[in-house]
């Protein structure tokens, strides 16, 4: 019988030392590489005549705006995933409720309405923070329940009413400001959402890598018990992650409501799954404690491009969902496998 295969791994020491950092850069750069591949694929499909209007300024602006919305939500969600709590499934209803409350209160003026909307979003986050962080409820089950509760509140208070900014207030300026959340463009190019996304990305990156909180989150996400035994207040750390996710979702809710010009329960539908997919393909592992916000934004780009191309091809929403689901499973599977072969998967 054959002996075990000989596979000497001749990696010089120095390279091994740097492999950690290098592989991190490759991982992050890799997701943007994939985004570029999607653009190339779109261009090829267009030149073959399969799709039209892909390589147009208008379409790219569309893509970037969609990516911005998803990127903002995903950047917040990344904190929850990074903390080792998979996902915040209350994101869609947080988005919807923030939008509804803001529109409802527009007659008090733009700023108070927006602040109230964000506050409601944060309130949902605070409940998640306490229940999951402190009472250690299962994050998936709890945030799912939370989203049903929120939906119940929306249905109860607003029945199935959709509420429109121009019905809530006569003040043209307020309406214009609200519409402008999505539509305002600097130099006619960079929209407010894109700007917000860039801000969130930089802030998120800074928090994760250059603050005490970030270091504590990394420890908590990698090994919660060890974090507690190192003097870290894990409950607080996890709670803040849920607050960040809720805040990001609330901002996303303002944008999507401004986009659709209507406050309605269905705003934000599907964003929980899209956001987690962006998060994991962006390199944040479900096991927690690993990944970067810059990678997550790259993940949002890939999802955005993919959605755009699929829509241009004419693939239906359900099929799109299925494809995204398949990709999610694939990425999670590959991730788990590569970690295991490195002998590092203890999750």
């Amino acid at each position, binding site marked *: 019988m054959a002996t*075990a295969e000989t596979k000497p791994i001749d990696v010089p020491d120095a390279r091994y030392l740097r492999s950690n950092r290098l592989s991190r850069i490759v991982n992050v750069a890799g997701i943007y590489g994939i985004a570029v591949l999607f653009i190339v694929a779109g261009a090829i499909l267009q030149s073959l005549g399969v799709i039209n209007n892909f390589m147009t300024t208008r379409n790219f602006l569309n893509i970037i705006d969609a990516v911005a919305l998803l990127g903002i939500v995903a950047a917040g969600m990344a904190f929850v995933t990074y903390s080792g709590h998979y996902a915040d499934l209350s994101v869609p209803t947080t988005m919807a409720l923030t939008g509804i409350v803001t529109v409802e209160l527009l007659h008090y003026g733009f700023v108070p309405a927006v602040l109230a909307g964000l506050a409601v979003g944060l309130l949902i986050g605070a409940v998640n923070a306490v229940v999951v962080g402190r009472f250690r409820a299962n994050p998936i089950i709890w945030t799912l329940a939370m989203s049903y509760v929120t939906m119940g509140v929306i249905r109860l208070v607003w029945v199935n009413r959709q509420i429109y900014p121009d019905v809530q207030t006569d003040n043209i300026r307020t309406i214009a400001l609200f519409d402008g959340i999505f539509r305002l463009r600097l130099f006619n190019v960079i929209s407010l959402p894109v700007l917000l996304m860039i801000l969130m990305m930089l802030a998120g990156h800074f928090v994760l890598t250059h603050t005490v909180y970030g270091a504590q989150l990394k420890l908590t996400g990698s090994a919660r018990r060890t974090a507690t035994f190192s003097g870290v207040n894990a409950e607080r750390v996890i709670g803040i992650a849920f607050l960040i996710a809720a805040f990001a979702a609330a901002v996303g809710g303002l944008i999507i409501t401004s986009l659709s010009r209507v406050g309605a329960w269905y705003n934000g539908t599907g964003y929980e799954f899209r956001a987690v997919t962006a998060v994991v393909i962006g390199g944040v592992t479900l096991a927690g404690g690993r990944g970067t916000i810059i990678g997550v934004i790259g993940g949002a780009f890939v999802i955005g491009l993919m959605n755009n191309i699929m829509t241009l091809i004419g693939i239906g929403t359900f099929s799109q969902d299925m494809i995204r689901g398949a990709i999610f499973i694939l990425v999670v599977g590959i991730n788990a496998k590569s970690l295991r072969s490195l002998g590092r998967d203890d999750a």
Partner: protein
Amino acid sequence: MNQDSPVAALEMKEVGKRFPGTIAVDAVDFEVYAGEVHALVGENGAGKSTLMKMLAGSFNDYTGEILINGEAVELHTPSMAMKHGVGMIYQELSLANPISIAENIVAGHLPRRGVLVDRAALAAEAKRLMSIVGLDLDPDLPIEEISQHEAQLVEVAKVLGTSPSILVMDEPTSALSRDEVERLFAIIDSLRKRGLAIVYISHHLPEVFRIADRVTVMRDGRRVATRDVASLTREEIVQMMVGRSVKEFYSRAERTIGAVRYRVKDLSRWGFFHHVDLEAHVGEILGVCGLSGAGRSELARVLVGLDAADEGTMELDGKVLNGSGMAYYLARGIAYLTEDRKSEGLALRLSMEDNILSSIVPRLRRGLRYDKRLGRTTVQDLVKGLSIYPTDPTVTMANFSGGNQQKVLLAKWLAGGPRVLILDEPTRGVDIGAKVIIHEAVEKLAGAGNTVILISSDLPELVGLADRVLIMRQGRFVREMSYEQCTEESLLLAANGEESA
């Protein structure tokens, strides 16, 4: 031993395994016969665990040849290894936490009735295996609710459930009390009589002499020698392990003991310990001795703010500690090295540097910015001082050998310069040389005017290091001994409640 049987139950021929940057096992020959207990010894990082993981099917890229009962086999996955009768008890416990004892034990081969799990058969099988290892617990308890030493026995039961013909135990006694060690030895004895080939890894040489027939010594990934245990002395084994002779005796450093630093009055946590009084002084190493279950770790957890006391007071340098949460205590220089390095001590997925710095995160700050470069020299000094290997701070913790993980754990707590350091089994799983290094570090800490509370089951360690030893039994301090009174026998008797005159 059954050496008249011509073929070895296990024969590894020139096997090797390298990791990027290290050759963990280098052309090792190793054979074990049925009915033999074969000890495998060597320093931390010598390659013992790696050699055995190879056998357990953890690697698909090892080199060399493995024969089981004379037949060449490829052990590239855990299931292949299991199929060939290899059972492995890992150095680091591998029990899944929230599920029950029974499900853990019978995990690989759940009895079924149709498509359903046969609950009754499951419980019966678990009970049977638990009785072999002498565990009397409710099989439906979740693992997270039992103690570490019970979990270790569950692990043994679990492996026995796969009816192995080759059984590997990687430091099985490091979390066990003396009684449990005796029980384990009885189990090993009966398994040997039943003709199993047993590999036994330990840093504790008395155990090797007590239980093993032959011993193989490894050093730097190579085999140094294989001998009959009876033909060797302890010194000879140590000499082979480290390639030089090691001073193993403790030379007590003279310390000046100062005022009371940590005073505890009438402290209780119902159900765990009751009415505990304790005074630990500046410059003192205060030993705490007791059987497992005596409440030592529970006490330690309250002393550092991980759990709240139900009654009593604690004072540091005369000031009452009235805050809650470990951060409060840590900020005042009170630190705790846990006995459970894998799940409470280290984050195995993070780098060595992140682990060492994890106890001082809030201090690594420049303005708003966290900057771990501020801790770089601390890490370098500790790596050097404790001779941690590998020395590269960015290597993932899981890639360190058990003993080196333990050194990193100590480094983590030394990093903050604690004023009161509570050590819970600080030398678990470290080799003889590393033990000396750790002991010197502890003495140095105390010598510099800090306080050390040393909880240990390692009696020579207590006798050698402690200035005073408190004996804990069933949640109470029952006796105090000065170091002149301390001997291994007197401690053991006192811990068991058989007072010597």
